[in-house]
């Protein structure tokens, strides 16, 4: 899985491409851990190009969420392909993840919170 990184204000945006499973998820976990070490705890994952995710991939996302929470940070997701969305709905993980339709919508939500 390819991970490209950019920073928008204080939010680190990771764009994922390919399959999210146990093997590729390990790289993502390392990336998140490195960000937490640098106290960059506002993370957005753009899943537009994730064409497959299995239960191990979901497990990776759950553990990332726990890690970010532990660091008092915030994790948002966006651009879920229909298949990915389906698996989030079946597992009802949409109730504990903050999911946005688009990356810009997610980034705006960071702005409105910090404005208030």
């Amino acid at each position, binding site marked *: 899985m390819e991970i490209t990184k950019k920073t928008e204000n204080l939010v680190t945006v990771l764009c994922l491409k390919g399959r999210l499973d146990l093997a590729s998820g390990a790289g993502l976990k390392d990336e998140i851990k490195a960000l937490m070490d640098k106290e960059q705890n506002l993370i957005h994952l753009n899943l537009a190009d994730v064409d*497959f995710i299995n239960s191990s991939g979901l497990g990776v996302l759950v553990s990332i969420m726990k890690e970010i929470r532990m660091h008092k940070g915030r994790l948002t997701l966006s651009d879920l392909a229909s298949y990915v969305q389906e698996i989030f709905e079946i*597992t*009802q*993980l949409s*109730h504990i993840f903050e999911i946005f339709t688009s990356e810009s919508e997610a980034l705006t939500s960071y702005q*409105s919170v910090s*404005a208030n």
Partner: protein
Amino acid sequence: MSNEIEKIGALLEKLQSPDFYNREEAVNALGSCEVDEAVAGLVMALEDDDLGIRELAAEHLVKIKGDVASQLLIKFLGSEDIGSRNLASEILVKIGDGAVTALVNELENDDHDIRKFVVDILGLIKSENSAEAVSGKLNDSNINVVCSAAEALGEIGSEKSIDSLIDGYKKNEDIRLQVVEALGKIGGDKALNYLYEYLNSDDPMILFSVIDAIGITGNKKSVNHLVKFLDSDDTSIAEAAMSAIVNISIENKGTIEHDLPLDKFSSFLFDGIKNKNKKLTEFTLARLKHWYGQDVMNSLLEVLHFVDEEDLKSIVKMLGEIGPSASPAILKQFPNATSELKIIYLNIMKQYVDGDLASQLLRYNTDADPEVRRNIAFVLGASGDVSMIDHLKVMTQDKIGNVRSASYAALGWLCSENDLNFLFDGLDDRYPDVRDAAMGALVLLGSQQVVSRFFEDLSHDDTERQRLAATALGLIGDSSVVEPLLQALNHPESSIRKSAIDSLAKIREVDNVEPLMLSLNDETSGVRKSACTALVMIKGHTVIPEIKFLLDDADIWVRYHMINIIGVSEQAIYGELVKPFIDGNEDILKIAAIKALAKLGCKDFMKDISALQDDNNQDIVDAAKGAITELQEA
């Protein structure tokens, strides 16, 4: 000209017709004439019995905007019929600048009511050209005209009238409130300096209005003049000062830098939110990050259901960021809150809940409202605390399906292999949502043991369990499920076979495609179509020569599907496979083939496609035209 007059005479006569359509025609015709007599006819039509005719005449008069129209309309201001008077006023306001001269001429009318109406209309027109004349009416013999003049000058907003207004303020106590209000609307340094001076007034009514007027000007430097009133013993004066500062703050995008005694105005500000006052809401919410304290937290929690959706999202997020320190206040209010508020509170706590907080919420898992219980299940699951597992297991026995479903989902976020049997029992719940939630929980667990159990379920007596097993194996999606899914291709139920193939297509990492090749000959067409898609997903377009025999399938929809799949490959070499269908008898396949050839970029067949632009079937013609354009652009 005489012809024109004759024509208008006929139209005026027609205006008297009992027939609505005749009168309507006459009004429209008069509206297109440019002579004064026609305007007079339109004004006459304002007294028609029918509202539609009156409105039509008004519409034409507004378009004409002439002096004659204005003069004639002013006559109606003296009418005893309120309807006619109001209609004439409305038209004059719409005529706007064009009516000012005629209106100003009427300011000396003997009838003080007409003078008042004229002043009011000039105020609504807001033309600076009328400022001087209206200023003169501050000395009118009738007090109503004078008050209206002061109000109108505020609407006109011209600095030229400030001196007259100040003069009026000094000479006439009865118009002071109107003058102050007008100065606030006019704004600017000159008006503001007078308003600052009036802050020394002993009259609380005047003082209240002056503070309000200063707030309306929105000038940042005014805050220095207003802060001292925040300490006033007179609550209404203090709150007026706060309200004015709020207004100035909003006008200046919150950039005022004064340290305000917000605690003193806590009730005022939060009542503003309850009363849906936009400015007070915006101001108060913007200050919450820097305005701590248990009272503030309590007040905020009480008004959550008064704010709009966007503000609520922000507050929920913000309280989530404040985190555990928000919990004592929330937990204190929780028992007596409405269900709607409880759910908002739970959404706040869900963001930071840990085992301790989850334990404190356990007592509410029997709340009377199932929606609250459902959200409690989510919060318990979000806590990540495995000691919640047993409590959630109890909640899976709730009498309401939604609560059971949420409890199974939350278990999925916490469970381990030890809870496997419990979760599998959930697959037999009487409600499909609950069964799906239990399956979702097992998918999240996704262990080898789960895979084995689902594999066994493929042969379960209950077909629903079989369906859930095939879906779950696909969602678990790692290499360990490929073999069970390939074996499921021999399942007696076609829906299971299809579901297994769809899952393999998503997983893609399938080394042995032989069983899928065999499925191309499945007795059910839906299975054959799925197998065809799966093979292309797994092996790419190179598999097309091996599966092309489906172009001769007995089922038209399999053939249709195969043509589409070839089109998507975008490999021109497969054009020859599709081409025969554009010469065939089945229109649906003909259209699919035309579109596929366009996608494949087969320019060699442009002539054949072009010939189809004369087909009798419009859908074929449209497809052919689209394809030609696509190929030309390729």
